[in-house]
């Protein structure tokens, strides 16, 4: 009897922590599309339905862009305000941060651009004075107190409401986009908690950034909005296309770089990136950037705090220090990955992992106590990067721009190289201390149980190193103009070296060394600068840092975290270079019991239920009979369970001794046997097979290109064994001399 033509709810869905079947999802989408196209010729309503179905993708992208842009604006404005809350409060409206409080003030002077009477620091509010040692201690104390409060709130909110909101999010999103299911990771609560606690974490002065978590926030928006459209809600493969586009929108609002965002999604995050997704990702990224621009979080129509505005040319001999910066970036990247992974492994395996709240508080306390005395660590990291990228002119009065102005005229606004004043030397010392602090503390901060990103701290490390080198080169050029190098390229009184450019190149080098991004990094950096002038230095530094870092360690930080967590992620970029065959990898191995199969029409419900309860396999091959072992198809465990449960409840007469059959027609049976159960509609009639002598490199290629979960192995036409994705991953790990038992999920 088969009257159940419509699918039972639940058949075709996946368990948590399982991989999806890409082939099945894609073919289901093609079936749905074909049905809609065929029906559209029947009536006007069906035609409208088909047009709206085609449009739904674009509408979804528009909504994702709007929501991501608004959330990014909320995060930017709130983080900007809360960071300054540690130092004081604005009496002319508590919602203004320091810069906006003094915006309209008449009392701002050229030397002291920060001071205005409307902005009161905590010592001014508590003991009504700002001078003296006691005021300093009060400010110090309040700073540390606020930092601890913010960090405590962040970690408790994460722990109580959404434990999945911690960390950066990019390794898990990479895994999800490759076909893995983590239920709740992109849900509503995770979105809300991640947004709120990201602001708290950034404001507490910890050495972390908000770019990685913004990608997670954007993907959550994408996932939540998918539920409004049937086409994307029911199909896991289509949903992952939307998530790729959402990730592009996330990076676009983080850096104000739509093209860089699309390339980042293509290079780093996505697994399959069809051409249709490229155009739609670009659309989503543009809408998000446009929304953020209209909210105008930084008050000058810029999307990022550290936009670069100078256009001074660079010289060919400067390629040498740029390559040096690239080497530094590569070295730092390899060092950071190694130490961070070691620390995270310690957190995972020892007692340290049992006290997440205390760990966050201790790290925050150490960071705040060490950061307050040095003005460059006290300011937020984005502001630090912005100041380092800035090219000094006559109008700047910060310590870093304290040059001695010994010249008569300034032609056309261009300043020649000048000797450094006292301020610059003391700034150099402070920056060197900042560099050491940031290098050390970021290792312990990334991976804690609060939302933490990595882009801004790496850029800060690179920018500091670059600026130090730049100022050094500038002074070298000034004091040794007779050297041939400087003589041939720099004329007397010309603006030869731009330290701001060195800071930018250093930032790109360090970011590239840690994440191993190539194209997306260069495009993001050149969108930040607004021009093609600096593409050659950026590319030189990015390539050098990637090569140096690759020589020291194989993977970027996100791949290393994927490996640490044991996610079943099949790396798409590496070649499999060993000469093993399919029969070396397939299960069952020589001494194991035979493969668990189901026959096509001779098993009872009770037999199947016994097999299901005794084994933990996620699917079973179906053969014609145990003697012939000729393959019919493949059936998934979850579908079997749901169908049998449903049949026991709804179909009358189905008992434990009923025969289950997968063929088109019921097998001939003697009379007075209980009614049979047809399960042909859950059987996959086209499973992928390889022969046992197929080289493993072809098998790995098939798994990668088609997104398979399992592949059956035949010998002379008879079913011999099965290779699952987990087996492939374990085999790759074994070949690379890593621990094959670290692959955890099925």
């Amino acid at each position: 009897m088969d009257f159940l033509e419509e699918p039972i709810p639940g058949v075709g869905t996946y368990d948590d922590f399982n991989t999806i079947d890409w082939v099945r999802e894609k073919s289901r989408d093609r079936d749905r599309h074909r049905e809609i196209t065929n029906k559209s010729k029947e009536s006007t309503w069906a035609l409208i339905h088909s047009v709206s179905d085609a449009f739904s993708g674009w509408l979804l992208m528009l909504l994702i862009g709007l929501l991501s842009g608004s959330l990014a604006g909320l995060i930017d404005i709130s983080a900007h305000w809360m960071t300054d809350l540690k130092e004081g409060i604005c009496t002319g409206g508590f919602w203004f941060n320091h810069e906006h409080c003094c915006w309209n003030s008449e009392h701002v002077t050229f030397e002291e651009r920060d001071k205005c009477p409307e902005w009161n620091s905590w010592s001014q509010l508590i003991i009504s004075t700002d001078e003296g040692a006691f005021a300093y201690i009060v400010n110090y104390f309040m700073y540390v107190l606020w930092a601890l409060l913010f960090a405590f709130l962040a970690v408790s909110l994460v722990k109580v409401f959404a434990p999945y909101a911690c960390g950066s999010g990019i390794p898990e999103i990479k895994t999800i986009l490759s076909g893995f299911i983590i239920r709740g990771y992109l849900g509503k609560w995770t979105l809300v908690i991640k947004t709120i606690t990201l602001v708290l974490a950034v404001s507490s002065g910890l050495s972390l950034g908000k770019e990685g978590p913004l990608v997670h926030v954007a993907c959550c928006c994408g996932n939540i909005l998918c539920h409004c459209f049937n086409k994307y809600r029911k199909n896991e493969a289509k949903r992952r296309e939307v998530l790729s586009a959402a990730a592009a929108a996330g990076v676009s609002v983080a850096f104000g770089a739509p093209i860089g965002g699309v390339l980042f999604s293509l290079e780093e995050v996505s697994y399959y990136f069809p051409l249709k997704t490229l155009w739609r990702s670009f659309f989503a990224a543009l809408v998000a950037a446009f929304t953020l621009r209209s909210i105008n979080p930084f008050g000058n129509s810029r999307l990022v705090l550290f936009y670069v505005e100078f256009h001074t040319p660079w010289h060919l001999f400067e390629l040498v220090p740029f390559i040096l910066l690239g080497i530094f970036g590569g070295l730092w990247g390899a060092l950071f990955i190694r130490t961070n992974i070691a620390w995270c492994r310690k957190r995972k395996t020892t007692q340290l992992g049992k006290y997440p709240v205390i760990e966050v508080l201790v790290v925050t306390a150490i960071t705040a106590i060490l950061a307050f005395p040095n003005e460059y660590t006290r300011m937020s990291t984005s502001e630090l990067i912005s100041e380092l990228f800035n090219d000094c002119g006559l109008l700047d009065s910060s310590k870093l721009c304290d040059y001695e102005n010994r010249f008569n005229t300034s032609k056309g606004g261009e300043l020649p190289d000048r000797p450094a004043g006292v301020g610059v030397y003391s700034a150099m010392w402070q920056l060197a201390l900042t560099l050491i602090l940031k290098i050390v503390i970021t290792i312990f901060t990334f991976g804690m149980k609060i939302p933490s990103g990595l882009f801004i701290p790496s850029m800060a490390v690179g920018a500091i190193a670059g600026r130090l080198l730049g100022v050094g080169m500038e002074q070298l050029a000034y004091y040794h103009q007779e050297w041939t190098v400087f003589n041939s390229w720099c004329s007397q009184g010309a603006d030869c070296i731009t330290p701001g450019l060195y800071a930018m190149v250093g930032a790109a080098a360090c970011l590239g060394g840690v994440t191993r991004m190539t194209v997306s990094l260069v495009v993001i950096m050149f969108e930040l600068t607004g021009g093609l002038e600096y593409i050659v230095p950026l590319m030189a530094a990015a390539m050098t840092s990637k090569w140096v870092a690759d020589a020291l360690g194989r993977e970027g930080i996100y791949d290393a975290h994927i490996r640490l967590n044991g996610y079943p992620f099949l790396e798409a970029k590496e070649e499999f270079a060993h000469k093993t065959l399919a029969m070396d990898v397939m299960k069952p191995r020589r001494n194991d019991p035979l493969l668990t199969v189901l026959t096509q029409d001779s098993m009872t419900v009770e037999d199947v239920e016994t097999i299901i309860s005794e084994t933990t396999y996620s699917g079973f091959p179906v053969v014609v009979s145990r003697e012939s072992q000729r393959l019919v198809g493949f059936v998934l465990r979850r579908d079997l369970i749901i169908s049998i449960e449903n049949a026991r409840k709804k179909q009358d007469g189905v008992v434990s001794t009923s025969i289950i059959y997968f063929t088109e027609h019921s097998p001939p049976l003697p009379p007075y046997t209980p009614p049979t159960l047809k399960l042909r509609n859950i059987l996959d009639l086209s499973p992928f097979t390889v022969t046992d002598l197929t080289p493993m490199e072809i098998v790995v290629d098939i798994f990668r290109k088609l997104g398979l979960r399992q592949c059956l192995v035949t010998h002379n036409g008879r079913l011999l064994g099965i290779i699952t994705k987990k087996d492939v991953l374990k085999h790759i790990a074994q070949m690379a001399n890593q621990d094959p038992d670290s692959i955890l999920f099925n």
Partner: protein
Amino acid sequence: MATLWGGLLRLGSLLSLSCLALSVLLLAQLSDAAKNFEDVRCKCICPPYKENSGHIYNKNISQKDCDCLHVVEPMPVRGPDVEAYCLRCECKYEERSSVTIKVTIIIYLSILGLLLLYMVYLTLVEPILKRRLFGHAQLIQSDDDIGDHQPFANAHDVLARSRSRANVLNKVEYAQQRWKLQVQEQRKSVFDRHVVLS
């Protein structure tokens, strides 16, 4: 019945999201239109020149008048020096929206406050209330391992969702219970077993 509910819910959420999107756009437009008089300024920075020290001048002025001659008052130098002085000054027109900032911060603080209140309620108040209402017996609930190794547990879950419940309050209670179980599972994966996100 359940599918109709689900369909209506989805339509409702789509409509509300479109409304939210429109309101965001309107807010952006409003912030353009309702330009507070104080939210517009022309900022001129003039470096030190001869005996005059550096100075910053602010004025609420329109964009076409944003230059040295209109903004710098009183002019510290006179006669032919004015041009040389003004050449060194840099004037920039800047705009901000204090309404957007105020609204955003207030929205953020209210959401944060609500979450903190709910957190206090969940961790402190609810156990006390439950103990008073139901006695000690009820506290030994299904707090143990729901592990995903039970073969038929997920199937029950999936089929149960398709059953419709008449009582709205029951539905809310049921949804909250399910959410709590989910969070507990997540907490176990992340904090105890260190399986995800280490």
